[in-house]
């Protein structure tokens, strides 16, 4: 068993998730440039997903096998999606 006390509490993680939700809403409503707003909003989403996966799904204490099972489809998905991007851009 890992020592859970060295990690932030679950309530602290929830507070961060709520704060990041508020920050995302702020980015959506404050008139930044659209590209910057979208970049910030999705960066915040990635951070929120990371917090949930690492602390609530306990990836922080998992071994390599679980990382491989979860990571391979993510990489596959990103690769396949990026492979389609040129096709979408050149068709516009």
């Amino acid at each position, binding site marked *: 068993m890992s020592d859970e006390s060295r990690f932030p509490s*679950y309530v602290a993680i929830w507070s961060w998730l709520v704060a990041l*939700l508020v920050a995302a809403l702020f980015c959506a409503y404050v008139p930044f440039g659209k590209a910057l707003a979208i970049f910030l*909003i999705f960066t915040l989403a990635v951070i929120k997903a990371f917090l949930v996966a690492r*602390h609530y799904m306990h990836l922080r204490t998992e071994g390599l*096998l679980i990382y491989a099972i979860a990571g391979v489809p993510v990489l596959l998905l990103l690769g396949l*999606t990026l492979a389609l991007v040129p096709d979408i851009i050149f068709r516009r």
Partner: protein
Amino acid sequence: MTTVSIEAARVGERIPSGKLAMWWFLASEIMTFGGLLAAFVLRRFAAGGWEDQAAHVSTRIAAFNTLLLVSSSLTLVQAHAAVKADQRNRVAPYLLCTIVLGLAFLAVKGYEYSGEIAHGFTPSAGPFWSFYYGLTGLHALHVLAGVIVNAALYVLVIRGRLWPRVQQRVEYAGLYWHFVDIVWIFLFPLVYLS
């Protein structure tokens, strides 16, 4: 040989079979939701944004639903922590909170759907709405499945039955529920904020 290698890896890392199965299931779910989200992003990019259609969804309602789902993740992980600490009397209340928050999410989603349909934004109203109902509907079905699993666990816990198995099942149900939460974390900005 491959089977032996995987088995050796499992034994070496002492991962329970149920947990391994849940992660394999989640891997398939990553491809299911990821494929749909990628199709939505690419199609939307190719079509020039669909801003006029996306302007009709309610960001406030969706933000409230995000808060509900994030809070339900907190209550379920607290249930898991109570299970690990063998504090049986704390598990049932946390599970009940998770169920109520999940049902509240579905009720708010139903309210949101009814308003949109009343304004003529049905799944056939355009590609944005087809994706909208497809993505959020599939997600809502996953929330419903999670609520049913959590309700079954709640009944087992309050009856005090199968405690050793319940301990592991709360962890597996939590993995699924948090994954559904992560899907919403990406759905929310894709559909409501961009």
